[in-house]
């Protein structure tokens, strides 16, 4: 028995080494972008040529870049609001609505996981042209609501499901209307998850490229700006500096969202009353 446990522990240690190697593989290529963004050379190659901040200076006073950034921020906030609103209502009705329609809507809302981005992009391109909107920022918002929808539905659904049933039933039994129960009881209890869903939806929109490629009119978003710059070898260092900023912001927002998602869950489970 002892030897079996010792063998299992040794196996665990080898697995631990493997997991470490896996994380290195996962992060190493991404971390090359910040590394070479400080390198004093046009080429992303070894040996490193010396430290410089000049590529970051090229980010300032670039009207095309700041325009794209503003677009991405506005589109990200609006799309994330839309996706979060849909995520909240869809998952709430899926859990408590007890109707086939609510269940159908919830299932369809998670369908984009099973559709490649290129098809989401072209189907919306056809749609926005049909309704006379054409490729535009509104079209991008619609596309990003769709891309972020599965995330917000999954996050909100698991959060609502984690709230003990008795809390909602108590509110209803004490005479609160559906609306009051939703707004004064269920929504405050899941506030951290709402914020988390919003932030993840914002990140999805902010970094999204595959769908936005089809839906952008004359005003590009940040990923489209990066794509347009990739054709010019001279602007690669600038792209790496910009990429470093984007990666840093993404890491921070994702970390906050992750912390929020788990926050208060334990409290809700510990004190079901």
């Amino acid at each position, binding site marked *: 028995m002892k030897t*079996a446990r010792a*063998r299992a522990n040794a*196996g665990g240690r080898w*697995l*631990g080494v*493997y*997991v470490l190697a*896996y994380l290195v*593989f*996962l*992060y190493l*290529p*991404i971390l*090359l*972008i910040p590394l070479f963004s400080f390198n004093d050379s046009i*080429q*992303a*190659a070894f040996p490193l040529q010396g430290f410089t901040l000049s590529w970051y200076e090229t980010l300032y006073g670039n009207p095309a870049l700041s325009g794209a950034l503003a677009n991405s921020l506005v589109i990200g906030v609006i799309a994330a609001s*839309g996706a979060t609103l*849909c995520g909240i209502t*869809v998952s709430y*009705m899926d859990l*408590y*609505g*007890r109707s086939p*329609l609510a269940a159908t*809507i919830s299932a*369809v*809302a998670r*369908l*984009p996981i*099973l559709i*490649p981005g*290129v*098809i989401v992009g*072209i*189907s*919306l391109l*056809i*749609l926005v042209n049909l309704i006379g909107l054409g490729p535009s920022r509104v079209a991008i918002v619609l596309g990003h*609501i*769709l891309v972020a929808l599965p995330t917000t539905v999954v996050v909100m659904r698991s959060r609502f499901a984690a709230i003990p049933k008795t809390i909602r*039933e108590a509110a*209803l039994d004490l005479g609160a*209307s*559906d*609306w009051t129960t*939703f707004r004064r009881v269920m929504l405050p209890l899941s506030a951290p998850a709402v914020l988390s869903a919003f932030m993840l939806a914002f*990140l999805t929109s902010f*970094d999204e*490229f*595959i769908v936005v490629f*089809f839906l952008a009119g004359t005003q590009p978003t940040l*990923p489209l700006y*990066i*794509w347009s710059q*990739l054709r010019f070898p001279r602007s690669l260092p600038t792209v790496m500096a910009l990429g470093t900023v984007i990666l840093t912001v993404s890491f921070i927002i994702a970390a906050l*969202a*992750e912390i929020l998602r*788990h926050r208060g869950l334990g409290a809700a489970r510990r004190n079901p009353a």
Partner: protein
Amino acid sequence: MSTIVAARPSPESRISPVFRFAMLLPGGLVTFSLILFALGLVLFLAFRSNDGSLLGAGLTVANFVTVATDPLYWTVTLRSLVIAGLVTLATVVTAYPVAYYLAFHAGRRRNLLLFLVTLPFWTSYLLRVFAWKIVLAYNGVLNSAFIESGLWSQPTLAFLNTPAAVVVTLAHAYAPFAILPIYVALDTIPKSLLEAASDLGARPFTSFRRVVLPNSMPGVLAAALVVFVPTVGDYVTPAMVGGPASTMIGTLIQSQFGKANDWPFGAALSVCVMLVILCVVLLARGADRRFGSRT
């Protein structure tokens, strides 16, 4: 007391119609117009012929006949399936041990590790692919590192613009997708099953092969699906690191809605891709049932 409780309408049946309508409206609008109606448009357009107008003209199966008879589309579809299949295999096989470690060995480090493996998922896909471009380029990281270390004297062109580059890049970009479903499946295996196996004298490898692996198959299949779907239709990675020899079906769809400007034919290609995905989903469903789904 119990009769009074029983006589009251259950909370579920009291939902007011106005509340129900208001709560179903946003999700209903988005799912029915942006997803179902938009996909219906693609299906409709696939049976039209291209006359330069938005929705084409007539009613025809010519687009599908072209897809079925032109060997180019068979080649590209087959290549997409092989690339996506290899990526899926590589991602799932490499992710499994990580998920296994997270479920059974991670202990207090579990939440931190879970966070670390999912974090890249929330960073820009375009930047992750771009990172591989600078790794694999002729005068890029890998070549310069090998020359610097004296392993070889000439930079090689063998990395960039190959299907292998597409497989490696996609496997890296979608690696975080695979871990979570497998981890959830492993984590929900009742511990009593493992104890029973070891009490009945199964050696660790036998209990892994006979108990853990079959019980984690639903997670493995879910992981395979969430990696396969986005990779089979990808057009960004082939364009960035693949070169002309790695054209995928997503690339063809994208060009039909861009340079080639034949929307009905692009729609027909999309319908074919969705049919392929449907087959894969049904296969996964069937396999899932064979392993006795717990989800």
